[in-house]
């Protein structure tokens, strides 16, 4: 509101104009198609990152040899800019869902990986020794000791992963797709439609908040109560 007094409306439009643009977006015929296209990419990137990141992190946490091989790969994936991944993904898969999902995964897999490695390393060795002394089968140890311990870290990682995926997928889909919030935002910018640009930014931020506080935080809170309750003196 303050900035709109100093900048022309073409750059920072008044709040009420942004509000009516937002209303127009939500009421438009294509809103749900765009919403589902973006959510589809974000959710699948998230699920794939979770499975791959946790799986590789578990292997690396248990076996040092895997950690030696995977650690540099993950550092590389983490340090490469998303746009570099985007170019490679377009070359490999062409336009469509795949490039933006791949860019999302390249950003989130290392987060899940490093969190899982640290989760495995911080598992209570006393519990593992107890399981060993009672000759508990490894599959039961995996599901009763490893998985709950890892899950808590994975949910913590989910929070940062989801926000990263949310940001990079919207950036990537702007260049690789016709449907979704990214292309709409980019299109509004190209047509110098500042109200629509800010309305989409507001919408993206709001949806990010809903995912974070409506899904990740409640799950994380529930798991924290159940897995961090202590029980050993």
């Amino acid at each position: 509101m303050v900035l709109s007094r100093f900048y022309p409306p073409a750059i920072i439009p008044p709040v009420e104009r942004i509000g009516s643009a937002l209303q127009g977006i939500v009421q438009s015929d294509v809103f749900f198609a765009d919403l589902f296209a973006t959510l589809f990419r974000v959710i699948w990137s998230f699920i794939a990152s979770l499975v791959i990141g946790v799986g590789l992190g578990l292997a690396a946490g248990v076996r040092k040899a895997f950690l030696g091989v995977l650690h540099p790969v993950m550092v590389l994936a983490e340090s490469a800019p998303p746009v570099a991944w985007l170019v490679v993904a377009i070359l490999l898969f062409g336009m469509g869902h795949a490039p933006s999902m791949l860019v999302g995964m390249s950003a989130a897999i290392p987060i899940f990986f490093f969190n899982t490695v640290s989760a495995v390393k911080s598992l209570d060795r006393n519990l593992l020794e107890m399981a060993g002394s009672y000759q508990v089968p490894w599959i039961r140890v995996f599901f009763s000791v490893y998985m709950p311990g890892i899950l808590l870290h994975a949910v913590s990682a989910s929070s940062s992963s989801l926000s990263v995926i949310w940001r990079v997928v919207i950036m990537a889909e702007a260049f690789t797709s016709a449907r979704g919030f990214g292309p709409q935002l980019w299109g509004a910018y190209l047509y110098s439609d500042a109200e629509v640009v800010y309305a989409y930014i507001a919408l993206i931020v709001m949806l990010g908040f809903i995912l974070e506080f409506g899904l990740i935080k409640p799950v994380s809170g529930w798991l924290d109560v159940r897995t961090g309750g202590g029980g050993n003196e």
Partner: protein
Amino acid sequence: MSEQGVVAMSECLFRCNDIGKSFGEHPVLEHMNFALNAGEVVGLVGPSGCGKTTLLRLMAGLDAPSSGELSYRSANARRAYIFQESRLIPWLTVMQNLLFVTGKSAEGQVLAREALLAVDLAAYAGHYPDQLSGGMRRRVALARALAYGPEIFLMDEPFAGLDFPLRMQMIEFLNALFARKSMSVVFVSHDTRELVQLCDRVCIIGGTPATVRNVMTMMPKLGRKDAPGYLREMEDEMLRSMGP
């Protein structure tokens, strides 16, 4: 040093034959001879850090001896180790903690339920460890060991950290349980009062590296209450054997 009062292998559940254990260049145990007979509660006592837990871990198979051998009456003798801490899985209920060891089969569930009944905690099956008191958690750990159905119980200072009244309560509880279930137990403690009340035989270990210094055979538990001063006398002898 050989152990006094060792019986034939047919009655003996397991025996440590001239066991030694070193950590790097540092020998902790040497020429350790020790036997456990069926239905017997044997105490291991010695000064802190003398190697009691190390010996118990060797018996449990959690560590391997550097020299000597452990021989068991049956090749696959099941041993339940009761640690100093309860080591309950905090995100599992009491019943789930027991099923973790027994498995969820019908037989496993029966064993778990019976074990909870034995430690008077059947009403707490659905509770989580953080909802129980310290003494109750120790009893759950004991129930877990019972549910495992071992031939040999290895208890490593199971009352460590409990206050005096709770400790006395646990001693009474264990004595009743030992008698009812005819358990074969190796009980490690540095508290002589616990040992004189719970054990049939007490091995005093000490020295650097540690060896068996003395073995005290106690009078039957039923008679102890009628022998005034007996427990005090045994405690004093134990302390004398442990030396300075």
